[in-house]
């Protein structure tokens, strides 16, 4: 032993600098959630999407803009939410499952910092791993600024919105992955397509509206304005993160 702890306990501090804490937790969660298995699986799906785009481009599409919008729409309906689910549900869910959450929870740090760090880590992984290849693949089909811009804006809004939802899901449920798949496939894919009222309850509808507005094309059940299409998914993410913070603050920690 080289030293001994000082005999006098330190005075109560006002708390750590939240900016530094947020950055430290963001880095930690980014490293923790990036397992080789997850990265390879999602990168392969992204690769598959790029191959699909190349196949579409090589088949001399009749209407490149329409084909491009369909391609982006398809990716926003499946690949992006699945990728966000894989990382978003695990980013805090893994810590809850293995009991290491205690090392974040029992600190003088408000719970929204943990949740925001998890959300930021999820977005950071999914954007280069999935969104960038999807936007690149879209440009292979049709490189018009309107379509590429719509893919960028729609993709970012989708990633941000789904990340909020799935980080919340990881905090709320022990088996968040199946719950998330049920949400993507059953709710967004089926129930929310049933009519105009139901479609208001799906992130996909708002992102579809962004695509439609920015490319001047009509997409079924994508009839919101550009502003609503952007704001509502972000609002959903904020509400989901607030709920996750509250839930985390009140949860039993192993």
């Amino acid at each position: 032993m080289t030293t001994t702890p000082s005999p006098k306990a330190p005075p109560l501090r006002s708390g750590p600098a939240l900016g530094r804490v947020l950055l430290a937790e963001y880095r930690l969660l980014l490293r923790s959630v990036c397992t080789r298995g997850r990265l390879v699986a999602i990168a392969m799906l992204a690769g598959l999407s790029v191959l699909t785009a190349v196949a579409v481009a090589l088949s001399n599409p009749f209407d490149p803009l329409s084909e491009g919008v369909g391609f982006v729409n398809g990716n926003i309906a499946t690949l992006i939410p699945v990728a966000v689910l894989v990382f978003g549900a695990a980013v805090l869910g893994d810590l809850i499952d293995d009991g290491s959450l205690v090392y974040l929870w029992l600190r003088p740090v408000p719970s929204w910092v943990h949740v925001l760090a998890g959300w930021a880590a999820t977005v950071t992984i999914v954007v280069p791993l999935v969104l960038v290849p999807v936007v690149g693949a879209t440009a292979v089909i049709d490189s018009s600024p309107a379509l590429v811009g719509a893919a960028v804006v729609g993709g970012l809004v989708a990633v941000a919105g789904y990340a909020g939802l799935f980080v919340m899901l990881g905090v709320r449920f022990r088996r968040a992955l199946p719950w998330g798949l049920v949400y993507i496939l059953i709710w967004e894919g089926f129930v929310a397509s049933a009519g105009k009222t139901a479609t208001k309850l799906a992130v996909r509808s708002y992102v579809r509206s962004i695509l439609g507005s920015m490319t001047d094309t009509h997409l079924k059940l994508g009839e919101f304005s550009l502003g609503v299409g952007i704001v509502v998914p972000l609002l959903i993410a904020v509400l989901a993160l607030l709920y996750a913070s509250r839930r985390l603050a009140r949860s039993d920690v192993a």
Partner: protein
Amino acid sequence: MTALGAAAEAPMIEAEHASKWFGDVVAVSDVSFGIGPGVTALLGPNGAGKSTLLRMLCGLTPPDRGAVRILGADPRKDIAVRARIGIVPQQEAMFEALTAFEFVRLAGLLHGVGDPAGAARWALDLVELDHADHRSTTTYSKGMKQRVKVAQALVNDPAIVVLDEPLTGLDPRQRGHLIELFGRLGAQGRCVIVSSHVLDEVERFGSRVLVVAQGRLAATGDFRAIRDLMDDRPHRIRVRTDRLREVATELISSPGVLAVRLEPAAGNRAGAVIVDTADAPLFRRSVAAAAQRADATLLEVSPLDDDLDSVFRYLVGR
């Protein structure tokens, strides 16, 4: 509850009629106590509710009834008080991607320590780990992981140190080292609470004891009082000998003996006399003389209930 002494210091940790249940299972039942500076051992068999009680004290789980306070604050609602708590949880999992130094430095940073890197080096030195080790903690042995957990619990120089079975997996030298460290932390005015199910381990802490059994606080007080209680309660002792009946006859008339029963020989094993006694120390002093009077050879004298479980059963049943 059996009161075995009283703590005179102002409590740094308080529990007031705290209860916790999971469905139909009562994990902690109506527990009240106050703990001041120094080392306090939370002693109880596996499944007694020690970990749940420690988690409640830290605010990791709320009591379903009653209240707990750390330095006068509710650790679930007042997050500032968490800056003064250091915890070694029971679970082994840590952040796998990090080295020991990174892990402890992160703990310091989250606590708002001014120089997290310096504090991490200091804390790792305390537990005799190399802060320059670049290996991930996943490659560490269980004992090394325990020491990393202790280091992260001390990095913020906490007033309250909560340790859930911290000596698990350590070699004897490291056990001795950490026991000495905990003692020093307690002597410096910190409130150190250590859970254990090993009586000898608790004896080495030389501490006050809270005995928990079946979710209830069965006894509180000085460790020596617990030891005395173990000696004072009725004991069952096996005496293996080559002359069963003669020894049994001598023992039945010995002072403090309540009952005698014969256990016949089986195979190569010699028979035994099973003795119930109200005074184990007196019996241990008189058994050799009884064997001598019976002209018998003593092959074995061993307690059948000198384990913690039997002590707890006795305390709870009183």
